[in-house]
């Protein structure tokens, strides 16, 4: 699997005014089993980039391809995990996880097994017959991850998935996500504005500038996992990333 983005630009039309430039000349390629974090300040277009990859937004110019195929609409090879409110409140946890499988006309019996398997992967077997309102925010995001994985996509697109959680739950879910990633070996593109989160998780950081978002730096993180965020090396790496992203070329519009 290879995701190839070439000179991608995205403008949003504003009636009666100049269009707003959200992304400008993004070139990026993401390979198999890679964990890439897209890092940038609020409003830099990182969510827009993710939505374009998911096929939820069109491009203004440039190209975006997965395995040589242009992405112009949602494609089950890639599944998006949203920050919040993505579970269907009228469905049980189990039926939420099964949702994507139902859409693929999966035979019901195997859909049940697959849904159970992924519910187990995120450690929520016991909650199968509960409803989303009975779960905490962290548990809901685990369900969203299970639902996304159940249709066996190649890429998980995660849009600040832990942004609405408290710090403790966020750290726990980051660890769990890495374990799941090791087990399933999906490609993950993870959008965040937290340097700490990005450095903890990713193989590679893609740093975007403020609007219009351009790729300012691509920083490889060659640091063995599991990473200890209290270690001196981690602090050093975080320092280095913070220095890089605060260079004038990354902060100036």
């Amino acid at each position, binding site marked *: 699997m290879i995701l190839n983005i070439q000179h991608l630009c995205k403008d949003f039309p504003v009636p009666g005014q100049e269009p707003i430039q959200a992304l400008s000349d993004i070139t990026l390629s993401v390979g198999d089993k890679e964990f890439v974090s897209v890092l940038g300040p609020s409003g830099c277009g990182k969510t827009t980039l993710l939505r374009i990859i*998911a*096929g*939820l937004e069109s491009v203004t110019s440039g190209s975006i391809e997965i395995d040589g195929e242009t992405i112009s609409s*949602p494609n*089950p090879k*890639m*599944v*998006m995990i*949203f920050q*919040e*409110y*993505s579970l*269907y*409140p*009228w*469905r049980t946890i189990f039926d939420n996880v099964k*949702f*994507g499988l*139902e*859409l*693929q006309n999966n035979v019901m019996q195997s859909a049940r097994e697959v849904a159970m398997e992924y519910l187990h992967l995120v450690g929520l077997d016991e909650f199968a017959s509960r*409803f*989303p*309102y009975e779960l905490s925010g962290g548990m809901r995001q685990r369900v969203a991850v299970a*639902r*996304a994985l159940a*249709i066996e996509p190649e890429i998980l*697109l995660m849009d600040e998935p832990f942004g609405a959680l408290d710090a403790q739950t966020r750290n726990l879910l980051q660890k769990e996500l890495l374990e799941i990633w090791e087990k399933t070996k999906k490609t993950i593109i993870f959008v965040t504005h937290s340097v700490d989160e990005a450095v903890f998780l990713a193989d590679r950081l893609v740093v975007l500038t403020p609007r219009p978002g351009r790729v300012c730096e691509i920083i490889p993180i060659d640091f063995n996992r599991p990473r200890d965020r209290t270690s001196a090396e981690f602090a050093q790496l975080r320092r280095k990333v913070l220095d890089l992203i605060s260079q004038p070329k990354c902060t100036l519009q």
Partner: protein
Amino acid sequence: MRSPLVLLLPVLLIVGWEVASLIIDNPFILPSLTTVIPILLHPFSTEYTLGAPSLMGNAAASLLRVTSGFVLAAIIAIPLGIGMGRSPFLNDFLDSTIELLRPIPPLAWVPLALAWFKIGFVSIVFIIFIGAFFPILLNTIDGVKSIKKTWVEVAETLGAREQDILSKVILPGSAPIIWTGLRVGFGIAWMCVVAAEWLPGISAGLGYLILYAYNFGQTNLIIAGMVVIGIIGLLIDQVFKAGERKWFSWRALER
């Protein structure tokens, strides 16, 4: 358990009524309870209804009319509301007309209904249809608009086609508000049927019965008819509420 206080006022009213009827001593103004209760205790007998169909016979006639008009309104209003909620084009096209027609009371359509459909079943069903149609339509539109954009996008990224989004996201997601529309619509339909049964040429129905009783000066029968109208309206509302609690409790509990 609710406090016994909820029963206090009804009991006081009944006692007060009986006392007042003794003081007034005119059954045309206020009949005694003892002349109303026997009618209610014989709902299938025509002896107590002065030759009109029995209480239940009239109730059945009213229910058939109200159900016909209500079901017809739901069949048209729900798909239309979903279309208007989903398509800004359809919404812009229809909205002004609907806003113009909506404030016209259902009973203001009576003369036109008579001109179009003559006296009879169809006219009454039409009036009920008008009464039930707008609450169902407006609630359906609101229900569809309450659907979170994320719900639709999740379905899209998981490979949903347009018909999947409709049947697995839009319909279940808006169902609680559509249900509220049905409940309000049925309430209005039930009010309309009583008045619509006052049209000339009607010979059954609870509305017909109470006007018929008035023509004979039988106030006890008027009140018995009113009690039945109230009880049926209450029971149906309870059925809708029970459905809401059973199927749609997620909506109130969702954070």
